[in-house]
């Protein structure tokens, strides 16, 4: 029942504005009922639908520079790696929005999709979701908490899309108002580094930014037609992204 039929929601993230503060990660977790880490969790077993990485230029002090790289589900529009592999149709691309949907209640936790995703944007619930006693009442009623043993990932705050749709319906509209639907990370970014909108509509700011000079996508050659764009004026950033893997381990 998604509104604006055949929209292609996506975003452009301005790496030159991102300060790496982590507001997007926190806002995302709160919006989507992602639990705090289990005491034993590490940066490899945690759940961060939105995760800010740090990419350095590999040069020593004082020439070292770094850029913060927010990574979320890239919402691949073509050859979507995770969709084809799921044995029981728990993943699909929503024709109406272009959003890659993950159905935790259908997932059996085989993690094949995680092996398939080159962006490492999928996360497995290694533990039961647990909030400190009494904190369950701060959960967002628009998003169902997931259970242990299933995979989850960013769905561009589908709960917020639902909210926008219901609001529109209450007012007798089928199409949602653009500013009624903004993912939590976009809203929360203090540097206003993320531009969100419908890429299918050439008039939107996001569509224009995506086409602008200095905009690029990760692993573009895989032909996954992802809907998350990045942009930077800094040449070395483009260099680092092109040269791909095989560099020093990076923090973040």
């Amino acid at each position: 029942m998604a509104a604006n039929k055949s929209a292609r929601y996506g975003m452009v993230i301005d790496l030159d504005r991102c300060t790496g503060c982590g507001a997007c990660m926190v806002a995302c977790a709160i919006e989507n009922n992602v639990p705090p880490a289990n005491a034993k969790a590490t940066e490899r077993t945690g759940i961060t639908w939105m995760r800010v990485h740090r990419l350095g230029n590999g040069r020593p002090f004082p020439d070292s520079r770094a850029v913060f790289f927010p990574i979320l589900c890239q919402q691949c529009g073509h050859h979507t790696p995770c969709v084809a592999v799921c044995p029981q149709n728990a993943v699909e691309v929503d024709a109406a929005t272009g959003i890659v949907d993950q159905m935790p209640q259908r997932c059996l936790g085989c993690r094949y999709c995680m092996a398939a995703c080159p962006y490492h944007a999928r996360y497995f619930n290694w533990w039961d979701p647990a909030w400190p006693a009494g904190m369950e009442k701060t959960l967002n009623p628009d998003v169902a908490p997931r259970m242990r043993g299933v995979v989850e990932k960013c769905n561009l705050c589908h709960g917020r899309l639902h909210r926008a749709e219901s609001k529109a319906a209450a007012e007798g509209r089928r199409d949602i108002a653009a500013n009624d639907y903004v993912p939590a990370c976009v809203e929360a970014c203090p540097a206003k580094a993320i531009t969100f909108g419908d890429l299918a509509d050439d008039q939107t700011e996001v569509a224009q930014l995506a086409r602008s000079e200095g905009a690029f996508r990760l692993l573009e050659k895989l032909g996954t037609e992802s809907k998350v764009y990045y942009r930077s004026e800094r040449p070395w950033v483009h260099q680092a992204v092109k040269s791909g893997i095989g560099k020093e381990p990076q923090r973040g």
Partner: protein
Amino acid sequence: MKNYRGSILFVAGFAIALSAGWLAFPRAEYERQNQPIQFSHKVHRDKGGMKCEDCHAIRDDGTFSGIPAVDKCAGCHAAPMGTTDEEKRMIKRYIEPNREIPWLVYARQPENVRFSHAFHVKLAKLACERCHQAHGDSNSLPAFERDRVSGYSRDILGDPSLANAANRHPGMQMDDCIRCHQQRGVQDSCLACHK
């Protein structure tokens, strides 16, 4: 004789299993709970002249109010309007101490289901009866039946094949949603109706 004996035993076991599975199990599967107090939609509609949306309203933000809070009841029932003991009990138990009534919601969908009344009522113009059948005409509240295995209400997770005259037709299962959506050519992704 000996061979017969074998077959007879086999058939006997077969029969026992069948009867247990078809007759006993459907009863055992659901635990029945009575509502905290009795309530007649009929009376409220006919005598009270109320419409569904007087108590079950769609809010401005498109969310659904569901079953009204006790203060809504208090609005009329601060003092008994009728003569039934049930009403007196309600006033004494819930209205006077201003305690919420722990209704058991037949149509309460699982946490992961997103159902927008706004969509179905305001846009699709569906009548309440389309899903809730004649619940609005009911004179009393039937027992709430919870599936012991899945933990969900029978209305949203009953097995139609087991539905007997006694209980309401379960019209709120995912299959029912899908059937109706297909008839109306509504194309949906999982997350359109799940959250």
